């Protein structure tokens, strides 16, 4: 791996926030870290960007000014206009002259915010704010782009536009690390890391994770839970048999990515 975390431990007081976590980040590739509230996603990004020092393990990152980072709750100034936000970031990154105006125009075009350049950041819709924040982080063409839940709470149209921005950054050679709570966003990644309670449950390409599902998966109808290792998919049940033997009446199915994620979590919980 070019950039990323290697076998990193992070402690917060007595608590272990991350234990042996590896998150690779390579040029032109998108790494997605997926997990729920409290899984340790933000901590990974703070370790990656140098905001906190791990207790163990290695962190590979470019010089600070070659990183673009958007935390989950900020990334722009609400009291500045879109244009002023761009100007502020350009100053911070010491862009000047032709490069400065060229990049600002490019970001306005890519984010679809050209018509909103005089609006205050705080007055933009949630989706527009996220697009602006990602745009600001891309202003200096970083080698490593780090985005903490850029699409949480954002509506589907803005979400697709954000992923287009992220895809463009990767296509331009940037290494991208994105966190999300949405399982279906993992399918967009070249590399997926499933994180739960500070530990990696599974990692690899989406195909690796799918083909790594141990045992057998089946589908059952009816109201009663077929086995303890069962969960709902719409009206029917999904049943996981770690040893490969499904109970009678359970029809085998090819697991999809949603199944693989739940199974990894169940396996992690079982220890």
């Amino acid at each position, binding site marked *: 791996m070019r950039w990323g975390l290697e076998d990193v431990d992070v402690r917060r007081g007595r608590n272990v926030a991350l234990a042996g976590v590896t998150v690779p980040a390579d040029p032109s590739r998108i790494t997605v870290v997926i997990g729920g*509230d409290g899984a340790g996603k933000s901590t990974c990004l703070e370790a990656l960007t140098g905001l906190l020092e791990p207790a163990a393990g290695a962190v590979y990152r470019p010089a600070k000014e070659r990183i673009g980072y958007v935390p989950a709750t900020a990334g722009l100034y609400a009291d500045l206009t879109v244009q002023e936000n761009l100007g502020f970031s350009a100053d911070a990154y010491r862009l000047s002259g032709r490069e400065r105006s060229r990049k600002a125009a490019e970001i306005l075009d890519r984010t679809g915010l050209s018509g909103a350049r005089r609006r205050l950041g705080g007055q933009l819709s949630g989706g527009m704010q996220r697009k602006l924040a990602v745009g600001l982080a891309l202003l200096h063409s970083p080698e490593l782009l780090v985005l903490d839940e850029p699409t949480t709470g954002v509506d*589907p149209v803005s979400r697709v536009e954000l992923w287009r921005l992220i895809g*463009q950054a990767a296509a331009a050679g940037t290494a991208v690390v994105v966190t999300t709570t949405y399982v279906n966003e993992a399918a967009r990644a070249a590399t997926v890391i499933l994180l739960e309670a500070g530990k990696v449950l599974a990692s690899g390409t989406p195909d690796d994770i799918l083909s790594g599902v141990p045992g057998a998966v089946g589908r059952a109808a009816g109201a009663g839970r077929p086995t303890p290792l069962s969960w709902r998919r719409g009206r029917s049940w999904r049943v996981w048999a770690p040893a490969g033997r499904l109970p009678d009446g359970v029809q085998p199915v090819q697991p999809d990515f949603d199944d693989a994620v739940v199974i990894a*979590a169940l396996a992690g919980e079982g220890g």
Partner: protein
Amino acid sequence: MAALAEARGASRRFGAFTAVSGADLAVTRGEVVGLLGANGAGKTTLVRLLLGLLRPSDGAVLLFGAAPSVSSRRRVGYVPQTLGLYAGLTVAENWAFTATAFGNSGAPVAAGIAAWRNELAGSLPLGVQRQVAFAVALSHHPELLILDEPTSGVGPLRGARLWDDIRQSADQGAGVLVTTHNMEEAEQCDRLVVMAGGRVVARGTAAEIIGDRTVAQVRCDDTTRAFALLDAGHLPVQAHGTTLRVGAPAAAVSGLLARGGVDATIEVVPANLEEAFVAMVAGQEAA
């Protein structure tokens, strides 16, 4: 079967702005209906109409077969996205507060959340808070449940367990209306009602809503270059693992790639729900 909640050609205007226009929606016992729409599509206004918190400007709204009222709202359980818990009260106190409000004082805390009874609601992880809010909303045995993005942000296993709870309520006869813009949640519902710009623009199962929409799936050695070419050609391209998906005709995709000297395999594959939804909403805005 009579609907638990029903909108018939319901519209709601605020001054010159029409938030909901001629919407039809019904939720019956035992089913989970997804109300899917982008921000500002009219989902919240429609829910407020169903609850009787707003009156329709046109059309009719029925809750348990009659105009919504305070007494019929007692038969509804509602969990907003903000959960409606008191962060500074314990789980048991939150439970007792809601039970008392619904005339159920003294009801024992549900077994599923009893382990956290003495914890402050605000100190619990989001997934547990969602589980608590759901149990509290069920404390008065509502016949209709209205849930706003019930599993957002909680991680795969906790999300699966929340769906177990939601399905169990439906199996026991409740009707469930889930408002969401999250495709994973939408895919868990029995059927969907899709709103855009205040109107219902599609309804049916996820498969019916996707219909025969397709995207072009691109496989090649240099997806980075292929992405850049398709993006520069203004085609709606999205990276998907080691492939690209493009909401455009295969001929347009192959033409651009061939002119750029990229050798690629292009396959026309069924769209997913998100792609269908985005195409539908974009079409609505263009119309």
